[in-house]
């Protein structure tokens, strides 16, 4: 695993003479980012030339951009030259060999969440048998999907097998030059998922990254592209309720959704990356660009997210409501405890006639957590009869945390109707007293109230996710009341 500097040096020098040679075994690139790294990365993945150029264009643009400072979060600057931008999928031999080697605290959390033993192994990165249950399940699922013509594969595979689809849709929703982190992602994205639902197909099952065999090591610059053709329907689940073992601090993912006429995409996320320790040391920086385009008439995109992890979350899943009668939804629960910071929300851009959007955002802050909702609702001139309803509620637990709301509302059509409501409150001592009096412990009371507070969003989650999400909140809030 040690970087072979000399080899890379000779490799980069070779470029000018013969172009790239990729047959040298190289596990990890040495830290640093320049055009050669982007080229090398692209070559490693045997990408077609247009994609290499696309990456380079993004990289060149990224150089000219500045890291955004407007989010209401504070963190130490990231040294982009200290990151290694390619790391071959790790062999399972590197991970812990059995659960005994895994951090005891992590295991305890798994148990609290009620995760089966075999799954625990997978999550903790323990080497597992090839006949492990979920793997075989995944294979069965794959054949089922194939029958319906649904493409569900890793991004790299899709580039090889369906280059025409990738070329047609990549970067059309989140352009490579969109923002600082999206540009960085476009230049160096490692892998991700690609989903294509053909015309008129209702995807027979909920797609989850969890079931994609090679999902475990997509790296820190993930790229997801979901295309739903006319009249199709898909529900996609991302992430996992269990804390993930991860060494990378910076995560800059991009998700693009395209919904054509009458298509519907439901995208659910449960994010629970390492939030740092009790003093706010360490933890993941999660800077994500997620955007969906309702291109067709009557199309619908729905985002549901439960954000409990990461030291810093910077994420605004958005909908561009282009097609007439299209619909966008955003349901979010963001929880910050200890020193976590979250600046999250959505953008709803209404372009088409009779477009509708709903925003329900619930923020819970405890400890020293800072939670901001930042959202934009833009109703453009052509959006006759557009309708928006936004509701952002915050719950504060403890006197050292903060909850902030920054909605931006821009209306350019008189027939539009838009409403925004926000409230901030705390858990009343009377409520706690009432429950205590009936024999419910303070901790259970808090979790009960928080769950009630988040119910509207949990209801949108697929069943099994919703159950886990509730437990997850309980675990994440542990120790927040003294």
């Amino acid at each position: 695993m040690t970087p072979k500097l000399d080899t890379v040096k000779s490799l980069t020098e070779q470029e000018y003479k013969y172009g790239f040679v990729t047959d040298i075994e190289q596990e990890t690139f040495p830290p640093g980012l320049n055009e050669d790294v982007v080229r090398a990365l692209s070559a490693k993945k045997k990408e077609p030339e247009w994609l290499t150029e696309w990456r380079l264009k993004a990289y060149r643009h990224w150089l000219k951009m500045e890291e955004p400072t407007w989010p209401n979060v504070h963190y130490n600057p990231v040294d982009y030259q200290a990151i290694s931008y390619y790391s071959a999928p790790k062999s399972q031999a590197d991970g812990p060999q059995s659960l005994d080697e895994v951090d005891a605290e992590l295991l305890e959390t798994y148990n609290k969440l009620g995760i089966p033993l075999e799954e625990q192994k997978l999550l903790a990165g323990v080497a597992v048998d090839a006949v492990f249950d979920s793997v075989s399940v995944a294979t069965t699922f794959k054949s089922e999907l194939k029958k319906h013509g649904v493409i569900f594969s890793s991004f790299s595979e899709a580039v090889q097998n369906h280059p025409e689809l990738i070329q047609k849709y990549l970067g059309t929703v989140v352009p490579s030059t969109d923002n600082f982190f999206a540009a960085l992602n476009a230049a160096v994205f490692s892998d991700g998922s690609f989903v294509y639902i053909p015309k008129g197909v209702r995807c027979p099952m909920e797609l989850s990254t969890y079931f994609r065999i090679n999902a475990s090591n997509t790296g820190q610059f993930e790229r997801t592209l979901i295309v739903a053709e006319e009249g199709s329907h898909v529900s996609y689940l991302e992430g996992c309720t269990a804390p993930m073992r991860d060494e990378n601090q910076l995560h800059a993912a991009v998700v693009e959704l395209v919904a054509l006429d009458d298509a519907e995409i439901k995208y659910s996320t449960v994010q629970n990356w390492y939030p740092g320790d009790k003093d706010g040391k360490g933890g993941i920086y999660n800077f994500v660009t997620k955007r969906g385009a309702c291109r067709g008439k009557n199309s619908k995109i729905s985002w549901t997210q439960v954000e409990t992890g990461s030291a810093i979350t910077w994420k605004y899943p958005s909908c561009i409501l282009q097609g007439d009668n299209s619909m966008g939804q955003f349901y979010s629960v963001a929880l910050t405890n200890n020193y976590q910071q979250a600046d999250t929300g959505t953008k709803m851009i209404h372009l088409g006639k009779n477009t509708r959007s709903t925003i329900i955002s619930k923020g819970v802050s405890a400890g020293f957590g800072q939670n901001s909702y930042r959202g934009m609702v833009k109703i453009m001139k052509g959006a006759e009869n557009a309708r928006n309803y936004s509701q952002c509620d915050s719950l504060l637990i403890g006197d050292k945390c903060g909850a902030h709301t920054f909605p931006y509302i821009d209306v350019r059509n008189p027939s539009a109707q838009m409403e925004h409501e926000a409230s901030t409150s705390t858990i009343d001592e009377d409520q706690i007293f009432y429950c205590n009096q009936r024999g419910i412990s303070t901790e259970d009371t808090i979790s009960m109230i928080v769950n009630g507070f988040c119910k509207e969003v949990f209801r949108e989650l697929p069943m099994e996710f919703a159950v886990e999400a509730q437990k997850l909140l309980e675990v994440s809030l542990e120790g927040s009341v003294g």
Partner: protein
Amino acid sequence: MSDTINRYKQQFKAMMKSRDGDISSTVELRQGAMDCFSELGFPTTRMEAWRETDISQLTKRDYSFATTKPLDLSHKDIAQFLIDPAHVSTVVIVDGNYSEELSSIHETASKAGAIKLFSEIANNEVLKSTVGSLAPFQKDAFVALNIAFMSDGIFIRVPKNEIIPKPIHILYLTTSHEKEVMFHHRNFVVLEEGSEATIIEHYASLDGSPSLTNVVTEMIVGKNAGLRHVKIQEESDRVDHIATTQADIQSNGNYTTSTFLVGSRLGRNDLRVRLAGKGAECSMSGLVLASEEQHLDNHTLIDHEAPYCTSRELFKGIHTDSSRSVFNGCIVVRKDAQQTNSEQTNKNLLLSDNAVVNSNPQLEIYADDVSCSHGSTTGQLDEDAIFYLRSRGLDVLTAQGLLINGFANEIIDSVQIGAVNIYLYRLLSNWLAQMRINING
């Protein structure tokens, strides 16, 4: 940009020369502010606070400080802008100069020695130590520009436990000028412990000469004191109006403010309130009437620094033609401001296809034992309501007028000063009549 700044630098030099005598005591302050402005430059849309208000047209205009003597005006000339003199004290400022003939100060106010001009206390240390103490110019280009160029200002000090029953109406009038001129007005209001007063800040133009009005108002409301503040801005559509108001409220002080933004081509109103003492209260309301190509921007900030404070905020806007308005209201609740109770609402009415509304209500909360909420709505007149009225024999315009009146009157009614209310109802009905002509035409 540097051309613009150089132009202002030259203007500054010329002004210092021509007004050598009467501003000697503030030379250093002005120079400091000018240096600061040169460094800051005008704000651009890349700055968060100015993201939705583009002032590049304003910066391109060649504004110079007014040198000509103001016109001789009679009561008749300004009658349309007067509020019934039997009920208010009137202070009239014409093109930045106090007009004694036009002003009439009521006995109760003059006896208390409440109203003074900056020039009357120019050498007083009080002035030096207070002006700029609430609204520092170091980070704000327009405040810096105001200090550098400020003309005479109004200094109102209400002594302890004194109550001034009649409102003080300060009328700033702009007359016609050959060149594009700029005025930098300044107001300073101090209410000492237990005192009460009502201040009406009023900006109007006598004709449509292009000009820039840049105002800074600082207010201190002492312990248990009560200040009512009304701001009416109805300048002509060739005026750029920039205003910064900073009010500090001490414990159990009460500050009620109502803003009426009707005039100007580009109007920007920054209203910041600091609830600095326990139990302070602030009630803020505003009405925006935007038509034609107007761009009107209200930026409000209520900063809850102390516990047990209450704030209420209600801003409404009515928009026609290609007008655009911005509402940016921020409520900050600091760490120690427990038991804060705060409500903020913004409601907008869009009456034409080309009007644009930006509404950004914001909450920043660092304390846990609080109850805060905000809401924002934008829409058009309720079709059912219009239908109901029409089914009872009213024509469309009358029905619309009734509904618009009802929408706007909520703000005017909250002023609760008879004479001022009458003036404001008239202002609204004139505006509506004008709008109706536009719709018919």
